């Protein structure tokens, strides 16, 4: 039984503003083991990015985070700001969606690349530079030595994202959180970047938490996947299990609506009615009940339980219990 790299249990996130207190995340629990790519999939406003920020400790003080978060056996809550910031960039890394916003436009690429290395690992600038060049080559950037002195505006979007991957991995972290890393890229470039991530993951043995709204990305890269809706994890499991046999009606609907694109135009697409609930609105019972085609009365009355179907498979829904009741 290998131990988990990241353990999150009962993560709740509340935002306190001057007028009100809003609960965003409700009891998120999951594990990430070494050497695996786990997908966190959900639509906009479901809280997936906030989950990442909460783990990384990047939220302002008005955002209250409760619950157990342990990374490499260290309790993330008990770490001071300094210790957390040491952790980020060395053991725990992040890449974001828009590469053009993540690079300092006034600093050459090389400097940004080795900045973290010099600061955290106390390596001389010269050797850091050499390591930097090798990393640029590893992420598939030609003329690496010349690129080191270029500025971000001289570089294309896809290349920027590769550089960001290099920056994230140069200190050799054990976990990389990638928040919509390919959403802002063209389709052909997306393909290249995803291939790169998978390759590096295998070479370095790191784990990746891949946050995305794109089921195709999950199907391509991930071993396990977690589905998020309105601040809750509604279903988790291996990619094969979830894609071939989704248990939660939301997961089913997402898959069906995307897959129904393959049928002919005469047949309308299968789709979910209504809109995702606004973040922070908590209704009694299941958050998905209003849109769920299989909703029952109990779904409106009480919060659905977490059903552990097998070791790696869970779903938060009343349906499994309902089918047990009827049999």
């Amino acid at each position, binding site marked *: 039984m290998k131990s988990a790299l990241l353990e999150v249990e009962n993560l709740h996130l509340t*935002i306190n*503003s*001057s007028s*009100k207190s*809003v609960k965003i995340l409700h009891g998120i629990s999951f594990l990430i083991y070494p050497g695996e790519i786990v997908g966190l999939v959900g639509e906009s406003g479901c809280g997936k990015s906030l989950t990442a920020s909460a783990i990384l400790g990047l939220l302002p003080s008005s955002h209250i985070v409760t619950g157990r978060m342990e990374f490499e056996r260290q309790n993330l809550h008990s770490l001071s700001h300094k210790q957390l910031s040491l952790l980020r960039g060395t053991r725990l890394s992040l890449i974001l969606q828009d590469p053009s916003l993540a690079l300092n436009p006034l600093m050459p690429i090389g400097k940004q690349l080795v900045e973290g290395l010099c600061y955290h690992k106390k390596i001389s600038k010269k050797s850091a530079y050499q390591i930097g060049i090798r990393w640029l080559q590893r992420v598939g950037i030609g003329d690496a030595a010349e690129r080191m002195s270029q500025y971000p505006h001289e570089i294309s979007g896809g290349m920027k994202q590769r550089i960001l991957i290099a920056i994230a991995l140069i200190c050799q972290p054990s976990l990389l959180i990638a928040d919509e890393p390919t959403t802002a890229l063209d389709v052909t470039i997306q393909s290249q970047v995803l291939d790169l991530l998978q390759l590096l993951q295998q070479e370095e043995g790191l784990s990746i938490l891949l946050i995305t709204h794109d089921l195709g990305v999950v199907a391509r890269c991930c071993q396990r996947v977690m589905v998020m809706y309105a601040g809750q994890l509604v279903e988790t499991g291996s990619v094969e299990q979830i894609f071939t046999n989704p248990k939660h009606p939301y997961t089913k609907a997402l898959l069906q609506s995307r897959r129904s694109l393959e049928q002919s135009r005469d047949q309308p697409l299968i789709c979910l*009615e*209504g*809109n*995702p*609930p*606004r973040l*922070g609105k908590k209704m009694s019972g299941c958050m998905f*009940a*209003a*849109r*769920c*085609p*299989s*909703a*029952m*009365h*109990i*779904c*409106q*009355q009480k919060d659905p339980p977490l059903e552990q179907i097998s070791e790696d498979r869970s779903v938060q829904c009343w349906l499994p219990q*309902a089918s047990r*009741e*009827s049999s």
Partner: protein
Amino acid sequence: MHLEDKDPWSPLAPLSAQTYELASHHSPDTTNAWHRFWHHPLGKGGAILLLPILIFILIGPSLSGYNYDALHLAYKNQPPSTLFWFGTDDLGRDIFTRIWYGARISISVGLLAALIDLGIGLFWGGISGLVGGRLDEVMMRIADILYSLPYLLIVILLTVVLGSGLSSLLVAITLTGWITMARIVRGQILLLKEMDYISAAKALGANQTRLLFFHLFPNAMGPILITLTLTVPSAIFAEAFLSFLGLGIQAPLASWGTMANEGLAALQFYPWRLFFPALLISQTMLAFHLIGEGLKFAFDQSCQEAFL
């Protein structure tokens, strides 16, 4: 709704499409700009500072009972007392009454100048920004040239030509004052005209006038209002400054600037004569600046979601 009697495992009646939409629609955001303004300490502070001034402008002179030009030669240069709350000047005139008379002039000149600036600025910046191209270049170069002319020299020349008085004062203040407003307006329009709703309006066949008045100006209101609020104190100060130099308001009319001028000469012996005009100029300018800050805060987030 008593759900306890219904079988909890029975299917929930599908909500009608209408209820779907309303069940999850975003509740109307009551936190609009007005609300937000009053919740901000700076904006509120500015309004609180300004309020007594406005009140006294109205009731001040009648409170004291004196006329602004009434001479009390027996009481020349008296310090503040129960008879003369702010003291008297070298002709025995009640400073309290004169301050509020001066306030009327100073503030109305300030507001009027700001409105004139607004009018010219909207016109100049609006057309320049919307039409763009050559016209924009020409209009902006004219503005640049005007802006770089030595202000004080122009004002002195104007006073020579037009004579001193209220109208020449207004011309002097607004001559270059509109340029800042025009630049702000133009900047906003350049930003906004790339928005899709402008393209959509054009696609529907809207003409330039409609675009300006229905789409561009309303959405540029935030920065325009803020600039307007900040133009008022600079106009008030310009008037004070010019009157201080003797180029604006003439005796026996009082404005804060003229009173400050007279007060400066007597500073060593009768300091209250400078103190009160200076205090009120500062307070009014501070008040408008704070209101401007409050407006900035109020408009900055009026388009964002409630808690993001």
